[in-house]
């Protein structure tokens, strides 16, 4: 069975609703899970790596994070996290807030805050080796 059908993402119109609202919901559902899988793998692997090489000084800690592979995979972790947080907060706000204006204000605020966080973390992690 198609995973989208099983999730109820596109009802009984399997295959012919590429741009419908329901398939947008399905795409969101899929992004939420793909970002979760990336974060899950990253956290487990990074935790093992960290415990095996516990930094004991600033220079060791900085050297660990300045490694290109670590810096890029950590940046991807945060981008997954912020995307995941956007979808989650959006779901929560849409479930509990029914006043359109308040919902719009809060969703916009959350969105800008997460975009700002994305730029902030990229500035930190992508300049740490410079």
């Amino acid at each position, binding site marked *: 069975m198609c995973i989208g059908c099983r999730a109820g993402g596109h009802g009984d119109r399997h295959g012919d609703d590429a741009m419908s609202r329901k398939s947008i919901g399905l795409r969101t559902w899929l992004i939420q899970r793909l970002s979760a899988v990336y974060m899950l793998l990253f*956290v487990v692997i990074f935790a093992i790596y960290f415990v095996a090489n516990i930094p004991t000084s*600033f220079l060791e800690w900085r050297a660990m994070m300045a490694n290109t592979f670590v810096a890029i995979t950590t940046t991807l972790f945060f981008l997954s996290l912020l995307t995941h947080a956007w979808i989650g*907060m959006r779901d929560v706000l849409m479930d509990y807030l029914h006043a359109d204006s308040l919902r719009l204000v809060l969703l916009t605020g959350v969105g800008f805050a997460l975009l700002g966080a994305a730029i*902030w973390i990229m500035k930190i992690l992508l300049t740490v080796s410079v």
Partner: protein
Amino acid sequence: MEDKKRPVFLDLTRIDMPVMAVLSFAHRVTGVLLFLSIPFVIYLLGLSLSSPQGYETVTSLFDSGLFRLGVLIILWCFSHHFFAGIRYFMLDLDIGVNVITGRRSAWCVLGAGLAVMVIGMVMML
């Protein structure tokens, strides 16, 4: 459209909540708390990488009991959300979709989340 006159019963203290419902609610609450922790995490990560002084500031924060408590709360939120997420993922894949397994896996998730927090607590002692 929705019938505005239909009865709504949402007295949370009188609704019987199975452990799966508690888990579902906790998944939301921990998710929102994790969202709120993001700026603190990024700030501390940036500070620890900025200079030797910044690194010292961050490591010395662990001397404070209040800071440790905050770290433990976030650690519990993270581990709970992590294990509950794995459980939801398995339910999406049709694994464990029946009341008995579902109830058992929900208890396992609650236990695993708390276990990670206890490990963190021991490591900070």
